[in-house]
């Protein structure tokens, strides 16, 4: 029996719904449900799309969806971060000092790091997520071997910087979202960091449909008869412009009336203006499930995914997915469960969509395969079990 409390450290917790925050929120909610007291340590910043150096909330104790949340004032000094970002955007390489500045002066909270001193004890297990922001580095480096890390690594420049190596070396346990993320880490740091990386656990991320269907709050427009869905933030980094371009090619090639529905926030201008595309924007959870369930499939061409909750939600609703063959993580999920198709070019994309449209039975089989895969590998019982087993094991017992 796990008899400690858990604290999750993450830069934003509240309205924003990015991958790392969804992970933190799901874990905290489900752990509390299972009788393990879990709280969240976060900053007073509203979201990554608002200022990281201004307090949107007052510091203090909050309750977010029933989860005890402690907010601490953000650091206000941002200048070095701006000059480093400017240099990065011009494609220059950074010095070691600038790499440090990138992490030290991105979102951070000295108050929060100091407050953790009261929780670094036998009563608590602390987890910090993700590696990309200064808060995680400051917390873990301040208390070496006391706080565990959920890095959410991607293959990107920051992954290779010296502060990332130090972060891994100072982490108590390391939890990976996917086997591909762990392989990437072993390739780069296995030799230098050693067993704590090689023997760390791949937990995955818990995904389950919310209990109870809920009510559709918004005035719901009727859905098109046949459509695919893109769910998530509309960003260039998620290859949304490419998706728009390829889908218009698909409708032009097969003269179909099939639509592409976008749900979620982000940059609306990335949705190509056409009769074939519909941007529903933010929708309630219940409406999202309705949209997914009635779709022909969910499409996600992003090449930078450390887990991809989005395609999991599609499988939860019993629909297949179409992903990029250039993303090791999503392609690997699809291969493991035979739950969709993966494409490496426009022509393959068009043929894959046409195939799914024309083969209803296979579409349903793929969706069902995905759902079974999630129940087997990523139900909260399974995922939290992996976390708790690992946390219960003292670090000295590796090997």
């Amino acid at each position: 029996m796990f008899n400690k409390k858990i604290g999750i450290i993450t830069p934003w917790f509240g309205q924003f719904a990015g991958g790392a925050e969804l992970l933190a929120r799901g874990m905290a909610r489900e752990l509390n449900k299972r009788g393990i007291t879990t709280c969240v340590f976060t900053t007073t910043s509203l979201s990554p799309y608002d200022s990281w150096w201004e307090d949107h909330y007052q510091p203090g104790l909050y309750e977010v969806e029933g989860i005890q949340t402690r907010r601490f004032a953000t650091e206000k000094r941002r200048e070095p971060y701006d000059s480093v970002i400017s240099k990065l955007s011009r494609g220059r390489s950074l010095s070691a000092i600038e790499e440090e500045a990138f992490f030290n002066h991105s979102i951070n909270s000295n108050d929060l790091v100091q407050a953790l001193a009261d929780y670094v004890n036998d009563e608590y297990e602390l987890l910090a997520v993700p590696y990309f922001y200064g808060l995680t580095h400051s917390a873990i480096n301040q208390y070496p071997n006391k706080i565990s890390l959920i890095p959410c690594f991607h293959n990107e420049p920051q992954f290779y910087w010296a502060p990332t190596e130090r972060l891994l070396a100072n982490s108590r346990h390391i939890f990976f979202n996917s086997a591909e993320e762990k392989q990437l880490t072993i390739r780069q740091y296995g030799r230098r960091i050693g067993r704590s990386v090689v023997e760390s656990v791949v937990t995955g991320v818990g995904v389950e449909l919310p209990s109870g269907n809920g009510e559709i709050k918004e005035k719901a427009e009727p859905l098109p008869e046949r459509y695919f869905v893109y769910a998530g933030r509309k960003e260039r980094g998620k290859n949304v412009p490419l998706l728009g371009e390829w889908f218009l090619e698909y409708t032009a090639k097969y003269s179909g009336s099939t639509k592409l529905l976008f749900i979620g926030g982000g940059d609306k201008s990335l949705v190509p203006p056409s009769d074939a595309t519909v941007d529903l924007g933010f929708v309630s959870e219940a409406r999202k499930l309705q949209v997914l369930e009635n779709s022909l499939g969910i499409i996600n061409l992003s090449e930078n995914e450390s887990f991809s909750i989005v395609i999991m939600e599609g499988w939860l609703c019993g629909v297949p997915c179409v992903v990029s063959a250039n993303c090791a993580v999503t392609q690997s999920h699809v291969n493991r469960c035979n739950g969709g198709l993966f494409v490496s070019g426009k022509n393959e994309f068009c043929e894959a969509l046409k195939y799914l449209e024309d083969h209803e039975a296979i579409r349903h089989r793929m969706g069902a395969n995905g759902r079974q895969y999630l129940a087997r590998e990523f139900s909260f019982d399974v995922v939290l079990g992996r976390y708790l087993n690992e946390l219960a094991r003292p670090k000295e017992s590796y090997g």
Partner: protein
Amino acid sequence: MHNDTGPNLDVQRLMHEIRSRVASQHHPGEVPNPHAPDTANGNFKHAKHYHVNDLLGFHGEDFVRHAYRVLLDREPDEAGMAHHLDQLASGRFNKIDVLSSLHSSHEGAGQVKLTGLALPAAVRRLGRIPVIGYIIRLVVAIARLPVLIQHQNRFEFYNWSQQQRIIAHQDRQHKELSETLQQISAQILEIMQRATQQQQANELSLRQYEDLIVKYHEFASATEARLAGSDESSLKLNEQISSQAQQVLLHQQLLEQLQQITSEQKTFLDHQQQLGSQIRADLQKADIELLMQERRLTVLLEQVTRNTSTNPSFAEVVASEEEHLLDTLYASFEDQFRGPTEEIRLRLQVYIPILKEAEITDGVLDIGCGRGEWLQLLKSEAIEAQGVDRNRVFIEQCRAAGLNVVENDALVHLRSLPAESLNAVTIFHLVEHLPLEMLIKMLDEILRSLKRGGLLIIETPNPENVIVGSHTFYADPTHRNPIPSQTLQFLLEARGLRTLDVLKLRPREDVKLAGDSELINRFNEYFFSAPDYGIIARKP
């Protein structure tokens, strides 16, 4: 349940099928158009009744061939084809004449009905009657003038658009070819490098492996021998163990030595490569210097031979040649202190938008063009420019790079140019080498040579940066004195130019001290502000 797909659905196999289907699809551009005329194959459907316009749409050999097929029901013979093509090429006969002669020939008479031929053929026949024919042709020509003009316009438009398409196509092909060649070269180079590295690594591993095997055999024999003597005392066993431990230690030391040797070899190789590049660069400079020496000798010898006694220009020639004695040394200064060519080209990019905005595409003079970085950049932007420099080493380098350069004194060259003949004059890192009087004379000549609205761009070290003003400026011993931007701006305006902008270039943001106090700000301003500045001026 959807049992028809079975539980063993395999997306890998499905993707293979989908990819095969993609591969087998036709490219849209390759689908033949069933409505396109099949004139290339000469398939002109045979009938008994045509309109003259059916044939007038063809040109050249196609026209003659189709006229034969329609009117004579056969292929044209060689002589007939040549005869009619000659007639058409002469301009005195047109397609109506050819059709008329074939239609009314003995062979063609009555074979096929050709509507629309009779009237134009009759007019053409009347036109050949002396005197009256001329008047008829004149009247017809005047009556048809608007149509002819329309045809001419259409032809011109078609001709130009075709030419542009051909040029664009050629450009595209050329660009694609160059890119492909570059990619292939880079790939070949990379593959060769990888193969070499792999081979070296393999050889090293093999040697280490062989060494280890030999040592293992030695060790195994020794161990067997020791086992054979197992009756010996425990003291001896202890000795053996300690001996084995020493051997293991020895092996480890050997391995470490091997690693060290490998690393030393790598360092040595790198050093050799650097030396090689340096030697190549030095050889190139030595070649150019040799060329210069030969040239000076040739000039001197020619002059001595021609005018040993009377011609006073001998002394002038000697003096002129003496001025170039240090050309190579100055070129080396440039290499040492100005910075690598590629970096200078990148730095000068900042001025390209200024020329583009002023819509300048030619008439640019670069005074003191040096190694020609700016001229190269202008060439790549399709802006025609000429450089002038006195240093023969630079001139040879520029010419070797295919740049338009003149070896001359800048002032002499400017004076040789017609007034208002230049769109822009550029002077990079030259004014700090000149005495004030010469600079003013040069500005006056530039003002005279520039067209109204023409641009002058001057770049020079910025003494506002304390390190530049007190130290790096003097690294080049041919520099006279730094010129603050206010002074240069005053001189330009005093001689009649209008300053548009002063660009403070390349401040060292990356090394500035962090913080916002007055002391830090002042320190950053004095030590890390722009090391160079550029002035953009216009002739009003």
